[in-house]
């Protein structure tokens, strides 16, 4: 894919402005950040108490702590917000000013995604260290696993963004794109490594989770960081992640092209 030089410069300038804009909403972001740590703490509490002094499927209490504390950061860094940012723009005709610029408005969604994460991370990181201090998880990470984790995390964030964008683009056709998005959120909850690490899912469901894209937006980077995968599983994981990424990119492109023909620029 060829990206124009001015598009990159534009996206960068846009991200800078979005970050400045985002700071206006810091209280709101702080509340979101607080809310987003509650989920993992609950999962951790439940799994921790089940594991007790023993283990569940080979995972001890401190393993769960490591998993869900990593989850806390990963979920914040990979979360797709496009249904709330990009979808309404399409629905309310606010896409129009962006369509007049020589830059695909998907970049606007990307800039908002990046700025949201940058600003909310400023709040999350101190909070996160607080939890680490209290819960004292055992991170068995290596330099290699950290490097692979960074790669898997970036791919996961990108995949998640593209999936979120696809659902947001449904706003070209329906005013109820949220309903479709809910399905994705539930599937991620069950199969993405949220309610339970994928390795704890029962056989058939685990295979399903391995094949479907949800894990590659959330659970996979965590498993990579915590060294829960052997070389074969790692290779398969990255291959599937890249495959889903390519599929998502093509989908966004196709849906965008069809949607823009459909755009009615309501009221704008």
């Amino acid at each position, binding site marked *: 894919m060829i990206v*124009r*030089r*001015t*598009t990159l*410069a*534009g996206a*960068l*300038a*846009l991200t800078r*402005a979005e970050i*400045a*804009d985002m700071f*206006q909403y810091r209280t709101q972001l702080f509340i979101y950040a607080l809310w987003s740590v509650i989920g993992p703490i609950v999962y951790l509490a439940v799994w921790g108490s089940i594991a007790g002094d023993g283990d569940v499927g080979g995972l001890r209490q401190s393993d769960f702590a490591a998993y869900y504390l990593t989850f806390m950061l990963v979920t914040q860094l990979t979360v797709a917000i496009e249904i709330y940012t990009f979808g309404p723009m399409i629905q309310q*005709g*606010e896409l*129009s*000013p*962006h*369509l*007049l*610029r*020589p*830059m695909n408005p998907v970049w606007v969604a990307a800039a908002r995604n990046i700025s949201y994460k940058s600003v909310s991370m400023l709040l999350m990181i101190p909070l996160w260290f607080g939890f680490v201090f209290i819960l004292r998880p055992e991170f068995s990470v290596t330099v290699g696993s950290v490097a692979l984790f960074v790669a898997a995390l970036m791919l996961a964030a990108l995949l998640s963004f593209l999936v979120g964008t696809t659902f947001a683009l449904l706003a070209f056709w329906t005013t109820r794109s949220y309903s479709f998005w809910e399905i994705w959120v539930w599937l991620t909850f069950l199969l993405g490594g949220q309610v339970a690490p994928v390795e704890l899912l029962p056989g058939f469901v685990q295979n399903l989770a391995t094949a479907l894209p949800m894990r590659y937006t959330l659970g996979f980077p965590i498993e990579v960081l915590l060294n829960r995968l052997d070389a074969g599983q790692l290779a398969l994981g990255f291959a599937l992640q890249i495959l889903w990424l390519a599929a998502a990119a093509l989908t966004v492109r196709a849906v965008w092209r069809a949607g*823009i*023909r459909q*755009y*009615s*620029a309501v009221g*704008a």
Partner: protein
Amino acid sequence: MPPDVSVRDLVKHYVVPERAGGLRASFRSVLRRKHRLVRAVDGISFQVDRGEVVGFLGPNGAGKTTALKVLSGLLHPTDGEVDVLGFTPWDRRAEYLSRITLIMGQRQQLFWDLPAADSFLVNKAVFGIDDAVYTRTVDLLTELLDLGDLLTKPVRQLSLGERMKVELAAGLLHGPRVLFLDEPTIGLDVTMQQRIREFVTAYNAETGATVLLTSHYMADVKALARRVIVIDKGQLLYDGALDGLVRRYAPHKTITVHLERETDLPDLNGQAEILSVEGLQVTVRAGKDDAPEVTGRLLTQLPIADLSVEDPPLEEVIDQVFRGEGP
């Protein structure tokens, strides 16, 4: 030189869901949704030459804004051909978007919580405007629009008029050659409307840009456009000089006389109709061809202090066009 804008048989239809109010209609619409076809633009053709300023007139829902949205590449038309500066607008090529602008009175492209200068910098980067040109353009726009320190205040703190000025400037940073202005003065007070009009005139003179504008305010059109395109219900009713519109659709002249003293009015032979008598002021309407004769008779037979012959106000003419009256 080919025209800057060329539109042939442009059609844009929308399908909109429709249902009556009330719970029952609401249930019914779950099972079977009714749709209605809206013919927003229904086969219009026109051309605009380089440097021309053309007013797009029509009542609400006439299709003006839809036409502008197609021309600026926001909408794909249902049918027809459009060529602007050699491009098909809805291909939305970067080269095309860099040469045009669409400014909508009710929509804003500026970051609400940030000073407009931040939004300007985004446009500078997106359009790839180099530093020298950017500085020169901002200076020119600041002068023409009297922007002063507006660029450094958060947009939400600007008044509607101030915001419109900044919005205009933002839309013109990249030096577009074709301007589509949709209701650029809507909601502004008279002074600010005047200001925007003067700006558009100056900008057109300075840059030779082509301007196509819609407006509800006749004053905008009178001040800016020598040529008007009138559309209603998606169809073109008139395309030509503003004076011609008045001549064609207003076959009357209004003659107003101020008398020196009270007197009986002469017989007008059915050539004119007395519209009003208010004290010493008499207003008479005469057919355009009869107007000279009627005026002559009034002058010779009445003790006249003052007399004027005028076309009816443009608003009245337009109203007549929209109601399908006239020739």
